């Protein structure tokens, strides 16, 4: 039930991301100055914001940004985590300890602050959000997975693969990685959903999506300034982000259960 609803929600977001590709950039914008901060009505399904944007269409356009953020973070995290885990499983014991100590140090860095730092100098862009979040989350994920990697390396089936003379990279790809996959997917789904939260936060602080890009973070932080006059406008963007984040986590858990070969 929950899984079905989550998949449904995510496909709606994906669909609106595709639709927004074909919308003109000023679609749903009424520049007449009268229709600002309106309540939901038949003309504006979710009302309008302070400059007369239809919130419904603003959120639809924002879903493209969110989709890009999620997909690129997912891919980048996957590549980095895959390589790091491979390095851990291939490396000799001493080097493993060194890598883990390095990861422990990296975890101590605050994600949002580093993202802000990069954005402050390089200019706020989606690229910066993706890079900062991917680095932070893939380090976290690798730290969690590294214990699992060591456990799997000590199992009998890996030992038997070693005795048959399989090379270490091949052992990782054929034996360690498939066992690692469920945990990896859960971690990746957390990374993917967290980037949405990070985008909302960073955009509010002025270091996230640039001004001319439609994003859910923009809609939410715009509504924050009108909490006294139009409190209803802040309901929908927040709700949308929350439900999407939850859906990604639920779907991640579900897929992880499906690929678990020991379950």
């Amino acid at each position, binding site marked *: 039930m929950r899984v079905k609803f989550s998949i449904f929600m995510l496909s709606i977001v994906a669909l609106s991301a595709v639709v927004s590709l074909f919308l003109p950039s000023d679609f749903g914008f009424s520049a007449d100055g009268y229709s600002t901060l309106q309540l939901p009505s038949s003309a504006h399904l979710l009302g309008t914001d302070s400059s007369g944007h239809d919130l419904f269409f603003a959120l639809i356009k924002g879903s493209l940004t969110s989709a890009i953020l999620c997909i690129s973070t997912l891919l980048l995290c996957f590549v980095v985590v895959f390589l790091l885990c491979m390095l851990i499983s291939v490396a000799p014991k001493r080097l493993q300890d060194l890598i883990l100590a390095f990861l422990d140090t990296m975890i101590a860095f605050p994600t949002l602050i580093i993202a802000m730092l*990069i954005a402050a*100098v390089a200019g706020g862009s989606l690229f910066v959000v993706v890079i900062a979040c991917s680095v932070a989350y893939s380090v976290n994920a690798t730290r969690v997975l590294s214990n699992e990697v060591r456990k799997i390396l000590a199992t009998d089936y890996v030992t038997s693969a070693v005795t048959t003379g399989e090379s270490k990279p091949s052992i990782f790809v054929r034996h360690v990685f498939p066992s690692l996959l469920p945990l990896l997917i859960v971690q990746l789904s957390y990374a993917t959903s967290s980037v949405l939260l990070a985008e909302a936060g960073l955009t509010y602080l002025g270091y996230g999506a640039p001004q001319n890009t439609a994003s859910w973070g923009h809609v939410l932080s715009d509504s924050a300034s009108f909490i006294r006059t139009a409190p209803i406008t802040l309901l929908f963007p927040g709700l949308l982000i929350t439900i999407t984040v939850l859906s990604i986590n639920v779907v991640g858990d579900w897929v992880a259960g499906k690929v678990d070969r020991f379950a």
Partner: protein
Amino acid sequence: MRTKARFFHINPSISYVLHRVLILFASTILASIIIFTILRILPGDTATIIAGKDASVGQVERLREKMGLNAPLIEQYFEWIKGFFTGSLGNSAVDNTSISASIWQKSLVTFPLCILSLLFSLIIALPIGIMAGMRTNKQKVDDKNRGIKINNFNIANFFDFILQGASAIPALWAGLLILLLLGKGVGVLPILPSQGFPLGGFGVSPQEAFVSLLLPALSVAIIVSSRIMRVTKTEIQKVQDADFIRFAMSTGKTRLNAMLKIGLRASGTAIFSTIALTFAEMLTGVVVVEKLFALPGLSSMLLHDIGVRDLIKVQSELLLLVLFILILGIVIDVISSIIDPRIGRRETKYYAQWAVGGFRRSRGSRNVRERGSA
């Protein structure tokens, strides 16, 4: 791990402390190099920004000279790290105030905020986590077999479901919703002020400061509590069927009593380390909430300093934060081995004994059994 024979004997607890301090030192150096490199590779010249738009090239050059930005990078690095370890962080390049003084002043806002929200989240998370963890499906089946009436609607499970949703809430939205609910002027129940942390802080008007921290602390607690709750729930579920719980119940304790007295301690390490890590993350994670509620905290200061490119201040602040989190990691390890005698390296345990002054000396025989497994 068996200690190897050496020419001279070192007390294992002391060697453990030395080991950890050495790693801590190496990690700090590594972190400082990373921070320094990030800040220096990135474009954007501090001197140009401080000198202002109308400054001539010569003025900017003189300013660079004065700030020591023209020295070779290696020299700048050693200058900074020497100052950091001798405790003199220097002055801000922008407004020339003492860096350590302003960090101390801002900490007096952020630390109370984080501690308060941690308290709130513990009050929310622990009871729900314990209650939700205690009724598993297996137990429901047991109850059914024994003919006990099953109550399908469990209030703990309901809260559990709600809190899972809460972990997905953006911090900004949580703050806004709390404002709409309780904020003075906008809220449905306007009882708490949304802004106005007193200028003097806790020193001047502690009551006012405390009240102004309530709303932000609540909104942080909503998000954070779900993680603590989830860990509590799974850990409690793990010890549900443990022998020691059954044994405790056979001595006449109720299940709840056995869980609180013995189960909670057995699952205490995971819960405790989650709490400690959450606290560490909160220190900078509250940046959005601090901005929303206009609190002059640590992360607001970082935000401002990054905005004006006060790189020298930013790098010291960042390194202090990282150092704090690294030290917290050691504290977690040591306290974990005090809470749960089953885990940890032997050296950790010696250290724990050493640290608490023979607190567990009477049970020392336990170490013999675990020597091989550690």
